[in-house]
């Protein structure tokens, strides 16, 4: 969350889910909330029932957009221009909260200069959203006191992802919709414990609680607690690691619970990188495309077989409890790692998960009061600095984590890859309601597999007509990097010129064709914009393009490895 951290000094949802139902305006940018965060959407719809205005900005007519009072369908990759247009109106019509801007923020003048140039008319030209809609949304959002802003991967998965987030932060500060209940800037994080993985320092540049590795004082604290000299230079991000492996510099990798072969952009690049490694360990609950390439695979356990905590998107740290004993011969990840450490000459000495949290609390100011015995009700929201602190439902009340909030002047820059005659469509990718990331878990859940068994491409009726495509036809999606075959789904959910493919399917791995461009600061791949061409496929008689998940084939591989499982008693 590099964008948010640079504006406020902290990158997490500023407010709480339980505040949503009482908001008056809900502005959702680039989040298909009803599908990705169903229970958060439930609160939003409750607010709408109570008379709130729902504004959705998304090129696709998503499910949440169907509920919106105003749906802004900006062209893919033009979010900055849209937001600048909205802020231009807010400044032009005197709707800025001047008091707040003076007392609590810095760099307003520089920012104003950039936004002044982006009038609603200029924004209309870039985004395709009518200037009148931009004006209307600006007025609604700015004049209402209880306005909440939400965003998700639709905003972050761009080359300009960090700019997009900073623009959202600018909007929130301009109207003082922060530091109070029912306001704020609220990133909706995808996987269940993304927030916690960041909080706990599974990042190359920070320890737990976002304490910088380059900061000598923080480093000394960890050094004396862990009795080891620690490196001071920030490490490599995941994408840097694969690049470095490709160059032959990174020699070994240890991958826990992730499947980068499927989730990373440009699959063939990752496979090539992994092949170059001398040694790869994968620790997971199921066989995955990445594990197939490993030298050692270790069986880990699921959430139901271990104790610990997850931190949800509103910073709520909650307890996960062991319901059954570990299936088969698997072990919790923390146990595996501490056993391994012991073998490498470093005894971590943990006997239970709560002991790890006690150590984390001692070393992490924002988690200082997060101790397992305090989480039994409904958990605690960090920052929670000490054992008596009740937790923090909304942040930045009197001041920002970094002191003053910073306005970042952001100019619109066009997406990295643009369309041309050969690749006339913009491809965007995303998630489905019944799916979870690369689907190793839900593919094995019959109910979820039944609902959406096949990969498809959504295409607008006008585009489909032009290339002679009907729903159910097979079509080849070709980019500058590769091609896949999928079924067509003709729908006006997707605007002209844009097509959508979900990324959960192994047999039609959309990442074979997506763009390797990444945001220069946050290193988030640009999944949302990539130029492709679509070519209808006419199957030969009796032949069916292979695009259904072939579970038999998967099982065959596994059955060669395993005997029948004993059901634990």
């Amino acid at each position, binding site marked *: 969350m590099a964008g948010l951290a640079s504006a406020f000094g902290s990158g997490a949802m500023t407010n709480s889910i339980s505040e949503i139902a009482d908001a008056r305006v809900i502005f959702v940018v680039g989040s298909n909330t009803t599908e990705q965060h169903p*229970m958060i959407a439930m609160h939003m719809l409750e607010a709408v029932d109570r008379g709130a205005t729902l504004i959705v900005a998304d090129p696709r007519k998503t499910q949440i957009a169907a509920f919106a009072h105003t749906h802004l369908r900006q062209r893919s990759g033009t979010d900055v221009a849209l937001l600048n247009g909205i802020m231009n109106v807010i400044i032009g019509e005197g709707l800025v909260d001047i008091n707040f801007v003076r007392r609590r923020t810095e760099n307003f003048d520089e920012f104003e200069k950039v936004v002044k140039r982006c009038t609603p008319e200029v924004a209309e030209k870039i985004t395709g959203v009518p200037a009148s809609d931009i004006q209307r949304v600006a007025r609604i959002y700015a004049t209402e006191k209880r306005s909440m802003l939400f965003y998700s991967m639709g905003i972050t998965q761009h080359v300009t992802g960090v700019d997009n987030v900073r623009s959202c932060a600018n909007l929130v500060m301009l109207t003082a919709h922060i530091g109070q209940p029912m306001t704020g800037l609220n990133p909706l994080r995808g996987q269940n414990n993304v927030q916690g993985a960041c909080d706990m320092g599974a990042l190359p540049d920070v320890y737990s609680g976002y304490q910088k590795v380059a900061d000598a004082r923080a480093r000394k604290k960890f050094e004396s607690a862990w009795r080891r000299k620690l490196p001071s230079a920030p490490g490599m991000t995941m994408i840097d690691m694969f690049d470095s492996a490709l160059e032959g510099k990174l*020699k070994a990798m240890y991958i826990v619970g992730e499947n980068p072969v499927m989730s990373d952009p440009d699959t063939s690049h990752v496979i090539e990188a992994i092949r170059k490694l001398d040694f790869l360990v994968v620790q997971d609950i199921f066989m995955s495309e990445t594990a197939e390439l490993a030298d050692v695979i270790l069986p880990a356990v699921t*959430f139901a077989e271990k104790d610990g905590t997850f931190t949800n998107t509103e910073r709520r740290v909650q307890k996960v409890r062991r319901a059954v004993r570990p299936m088969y011969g698997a072990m919790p990840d923390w146990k595996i790692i501490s056993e391994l450490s012991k073998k490498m000459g470093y005894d971590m000495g943990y006997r239970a998960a709560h002991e790890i949290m006690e150590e984390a609390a001692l070393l992490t100011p924002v988690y200082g009061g997060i101790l397992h015995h305090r989480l039994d009700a*409904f958990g605690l929201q960090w920052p929670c600095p000490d054992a008596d602190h009740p937790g923090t439902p909304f942040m930045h009340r009197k001041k920002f984590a970094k002191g003053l909030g910073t306005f970042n002047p952001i100019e619109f820059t066009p997406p990295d890859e643009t369309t041309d005659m050969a690749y006339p469509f913009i491809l965007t990718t995303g998630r489905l309601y019944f799916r979870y990331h690369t689907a190793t878990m*839900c593919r094995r859940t019959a109910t979820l597999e039944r609902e959406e068994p096949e990969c498809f491409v959504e295409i607008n009726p006008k585009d489909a007509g032009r290339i002679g495509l009907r729903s159910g036809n097979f079509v080849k999606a070709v980019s500058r990097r590769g091609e896949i075959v999928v079924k067509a789904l003709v729908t006006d959910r997707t605007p002209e010129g844009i097509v959508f493919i979900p990324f959960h399917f192994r047999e039609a791995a959309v990442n074979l064709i997506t763009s390797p461009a990444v945001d220069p600061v946050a290193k988030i791949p640009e999944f949302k914009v990539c130029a492709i061409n679509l070519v209808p496929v006419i199957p030969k008689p009796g032949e069916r393009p292979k695009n259904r998940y072939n579970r038999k084939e998967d099982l065959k591989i596994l059955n060669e490895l395993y005997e029948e499982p004993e059901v634990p008693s």
Partner: protein
Amino acid sequence: MEKVSTICPYCGCGCGLYLHVENGLITGVSPSAHHPVNHGSLCVKGWNCHEFVQHPDRLKYPLVRKDGILQKSSWEDALDLIASRLSGTKEKYGPDAIGILSSAKCTNEENFVMMKFARAVIGTNNIDHCARL
């Protein structure tokens, strides 16, 4: 039947739910009635979040590649091999030739241990997870 209070593993909402356990097996799920996020509801993923736990495809024991083929191994042997290979790589090419990817599906405690492993045991800051995606 025993009901164990826990959290849905499928998305960042973090809904509260109970796993129903009978004879050491999970048989069902029910939502937490007063949880501040889900107020007694769950989405389709939450209602089915236990199904994959007892799936026969689960990895059951360590596998080690020998002569190009993944073969069944004991924990002891697998961990010994990893320890010696990682130590060897560290000695030969330095700690920064090793990269660690932790997981947004793991618990906080596990992520903390992973980062401690990378930084204190291996001696590198090459640790990341897939949150960027």
